[in-house]
């Protein structure tokens, strides 16, 4: 998430992780990438909690690690 620079300046809190699974072993030298899909968004007056379905994949797009994480993210200033 840090490398993606998606919410570097706007994240308020790391809310938690659910359903974390190590699907396949991760070997040294493999090329990995991370895909995050916004799955649900809960809004409040000052922030929103975005639930992501996250998948870390290898170079063949096979999942290595999957989890659901929640981030509290700032509301856009008026």
């Amino acid at each position, binding site marked *: 998430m840090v490398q993606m620079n998606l919410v570097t300046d706007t994240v308020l809190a790391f809310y938690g992780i659910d359903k974390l699974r190590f699907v396949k072993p991760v070997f040294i030298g493999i*090329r990995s990438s991370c895909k995050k899909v916004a799955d649900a968004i809960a809004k409040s007056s000052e922030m929103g909690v975005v639930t992501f379905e996250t998948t870390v994949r290898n170079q063949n797009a096979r999942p290595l690690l999957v989890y659901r994480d929640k981030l509290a993210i700032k509301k856009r200033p008026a």
Partner: protein
Amino acid sequence: MLRQLWLVFADHLAKLRRGQIVHSIQQDARQGVPGVEDMPASSPKLIRSGVALKSSSAAGKSSTACAVSWRTIFQESMTVSFLTIDFHCTRRVGYDASEGVSTLSLYYEDFTVGVEHVSRGRTITESDVVNFAGLSAISSSCTRTKSSRASPLSASGLPTGC
């Protein structure tokens, strides 16, 4: 289906405009940018469509802070064709002078359910495995930090016996 597709697309377009959108793939096509495909002229059957937000954090490597790819798969009789529309931000959304990298800090309004965000690739190193093993309290017998693929372990996916 097409109406829903258009609503999602219009929503993204509005958000992207707020984020300093600029030119579309049609402009790229007119300018002869390689890799840009035009939409099929006929009325094809839509198979699948989706949006992917690609971010680029290295300001020095690209003039664009972000790029959004809209991929639509059409079927025309026996032929499957792909339409990819790219939008680029010409202005950096954020910039950290101390690190020399641009940041793409999205507010929660910028997220839409179903939108993919894909990172750049990263090669797993020995230190990644060692650091993970330290953080997750996995004993050294459970990790083999040799770079060979024949080495049965890895930072995750514990082998039998651990």
